């Protein structure tokens, strides 16, 4: 089946573009970058159909051994790739959406500097993401995990000339470190207790283990894994990096920070669901974390003015939904939502990118408006995405979200109500963004603010006329496809597809749950329409009447400031005072210098032997060899 080919193709793209990209022409770079991803998508399709995934096959995990990586003592870690139905879904999402976004990026990045660098990073990301998804053991998963983290760092800081971009990159990286730390610990625990890191063997062992005896172990592992997941999937308390990550180019935000990478945490928890299921209350924590995140992020999203920020917070909140789904035991629903979210959130981001592109780099919604006559295609597609996320009936978002909410109701009714409220807010702020962008009249300052928010566009903004313009076909065609997916994606019955892995919920949930959720969504849409189309003056008055609350939300609950005060400052001071002044300058430097001086002294003695005459060297060699031969000879003679 050559599973290894799936990740290796993007890797080839990365190598080609990364090594020779400077000398390649743009068409060549496009061909390599897009071609590799598309090819790997096709290969995924071929493999899956070969495994019968589309025709009810692939009940069992199909595993392929590539080579043995680490072989030490009893520990035996090999690079295996495995496909089960979960992986199949992830593969389709990653490669499919990835391919679309690559195509989109060709148009979006057309005028950027570091073109080849961008696509090289993107391909590298695809490689690691596929490794993450395909990996058949914890270590491989971790490799992919770190790899995508690296790529996200590189791509967030893509405009590395801009301070805030690099800062955002560092932030993402450091925050993720915390999560990865937990993940690593979890892996150590697993390896320590099961003697192997291979998923199948570990889970097989778990099935036979007494639950109550080892509950503590499972709880520890699952909580540590959760820490990792919160880091990667931007859950409370580690969500702070994601909004800043919007400093990267929009396709990156769409691919990495909406569709694929941030869902890695969800995937990981679903993958290790066995461990969670055997822990008494780890899942509840997952659910609570998810719910809180969903709610908080949604509230923050209400008041953001940067269109990408809005979608970023909505991403966080949707991820929260997925966690809720996982936490209440509806893993398949979580994965389902993961997929649909990949569709409509990618769509939203790409649409936002198209809008930004149209406004020559403007990201602040207050400077947009009335764009519907300029960029109809973008508007329509964005409308589809917004409806989908708002849970409009029969659309993809609704399908998955309702499943999650129903499962939440089964689990604990209050979770359901919070979820419904959050859904309402989601609908509200998404359509707020939509209306602000497309309705009203155009408020963009002509030829102003060119790329001062999205500096990469500084170059290309000036090349365009200042009135908004529709994006090229290479950009809106992926939009259309994604729009179609987010409309119809709900009818792909993922839960049924995943039943072999995650048995379906027993019992038919009450119908009214769906109605209430849908109603909440529609209500949100209505309120948004009322606020931003009918009487645009209403929001200001509202904000002024609830100033404190508004500021709290507007400043994202001051979480960043809080973290700065509590975590960052102490660490910085500690390292400066203690580590730098004391440890580094005194101890380490002192030792290094001491070694240096000693070496110089000895050398000063030894250099007398260096006469510079080849002959004398040869004489030394001769003497030495004579001694050696004498020694050997005597030894030999002795025997």
């Amino acid at each position, binding site marked *: 089946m050559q599973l290894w080919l799936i990740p290796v193709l993007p890797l080839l793209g990365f190598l080609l573009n990364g090594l020779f990209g400077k000398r390649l022409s743009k068409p060549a770079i496009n061909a390599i970058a897009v071609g590799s991803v598309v090819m790997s998508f096709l290969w995924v399709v071929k493999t899956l159909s070969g495994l019968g995934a589309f025709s009810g096959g692939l009940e069992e995990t199909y595993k392929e051994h590539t080579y043995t990586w680490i072989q030490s003592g009893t520990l035996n870690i090999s690079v295996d790739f495995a496909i089960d139905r979960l992986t199949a879904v992830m593969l389709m999402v990653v490669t499919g959406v990835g391919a679309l976004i690559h195509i989109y990026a060709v148009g979006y990045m057309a005028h950027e500097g570091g073109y080849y660098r961008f696509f090289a990073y993107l391909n590298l990301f695809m490689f690691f993401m596929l490794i993450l998804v395909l990996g058949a053991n914890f270590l491989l998963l971790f490799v992919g995990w770190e790899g995508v983290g690296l790529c996200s760092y590189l791509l967030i800081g893509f405009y590395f000339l801009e301070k805030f971009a690099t800062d955002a990159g560092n932030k993402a990286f450091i925050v993720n470190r915390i999560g990865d730390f937990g993940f690593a610990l979890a892996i150590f625990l697993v390896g320590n207790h099961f003697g192997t890191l291979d998923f199948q063997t570990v889970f097989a062992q778990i099935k036979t283990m007494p639950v109550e005896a080892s509950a503590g172990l499972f709880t520890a592992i699952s909580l540590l894994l959760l820490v990792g997941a919160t880091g990667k999937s931007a859950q409370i308390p580690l969500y702070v990096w994601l909004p800043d990550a919007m400093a990267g180019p929009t396709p990156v935000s769409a691919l990495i920070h909406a569709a694929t990478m941030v869902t890695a945490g969800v995937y990981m928890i679903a993958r290790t669901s066995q461990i969670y299921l055997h822990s008494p209350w780890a899942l509840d924590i997952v659910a609570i974390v998810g719910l809180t995140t969903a709610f908080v992020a949604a509230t923050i999203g209400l008041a953001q003015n940067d269109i990408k920020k809005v979608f970023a917070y909505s991403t966080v909140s949707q991820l929260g939904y997925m966690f809720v789904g996982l936490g209440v035991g509806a893993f398949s629903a979580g994965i389902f939502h993961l997929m649909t979210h990949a569709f409509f959130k990618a769509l939203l981001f790409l649409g936002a990118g198209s809008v930004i592109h149209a406004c020559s780099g403007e990201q602040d919604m207050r400077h947009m408006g009335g764009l519907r006559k300029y960029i109809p295609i973008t508007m329509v597609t964005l409308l589809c995405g917004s409806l989908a996320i708002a849970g409009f009936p029969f659309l993809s978002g609704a399908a998955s979200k309702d499943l999650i909410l129903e499962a939440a109701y089964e689990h604990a009714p209050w979770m359901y109500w919070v979820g419904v409220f959050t859904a309402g807010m989601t609908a509200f702020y998404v359509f707020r963004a939509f209306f602000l962008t497309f309705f009203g009249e155009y408020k963009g300052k002509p030829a102003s603010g060119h790329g001062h928010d999205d500096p990469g566009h500084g170059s290309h903004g000036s090349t365009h006329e200042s009135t908004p313009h529709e994006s090229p076909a290479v950009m809106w065609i992926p939009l259309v496809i994604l729009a179609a997916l987010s409309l119809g994606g709900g009818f792909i019955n993922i839960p049924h597809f995943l039943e072999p892995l995650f048995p379906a919920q027993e019992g038919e949930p009450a119908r009214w749950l769906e109605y209430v959720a849908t109603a909440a969504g529609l209500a949100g849409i209505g309120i948004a329409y009322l606020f931003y189309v009918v009487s645009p003056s209403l929001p200001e008055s509202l904000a002024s009447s609830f100033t404190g609350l508004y500021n709290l939300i507007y400043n994202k609950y001051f979480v960043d400031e809080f973290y700065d005060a509590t975590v960052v400052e102490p660490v910085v001071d500690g390292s400066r005072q203690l580590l730098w002044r004391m440890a580094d300058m005194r101890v380490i430097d002192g030792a290094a210098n001491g070694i240096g001086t000693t070496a110089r002294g000895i050398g000063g003695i030894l250099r007398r032997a260096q006469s*510079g*005459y080849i002959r004398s060297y*040869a004489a030394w060699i001769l003497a030495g060899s004579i001694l050696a031969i004498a020694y050997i000879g005597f030894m030999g003679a002795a025997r």
Partner: protein
Amino acid sequence: MPFGPLPAAVPPSWYLTLSAILFALGVLGFLLRRNIITVFMSIELMLNAVNLSFVTFSYVLKRVDGHIFSFFVMVVAAAEAAVGLAIILTVFKNRQTLEIDEVSTLKN
């Protein structure tokens, strides 16, 4: 070595001893001579001595490998001669001398 009436055929160890003698001569030349070319030739002499012992061993063990090794030694010697003589030419071009001790820039 046992002296006395010369046997009809000599044991292989004599060949080895001969190669040792030649090697020693090579070393001597390397140590005593000052002309780069001669020094170089002394090295070649040592290589030849080693070859002789290789061939002798392959006679003793009745295996062809020794010949292969000496063949490789020859090839390497050829390459070495090409490069070394080129170097000598350049040295001479730059310093108008072949005295090995006057080419001791390594010193100090």
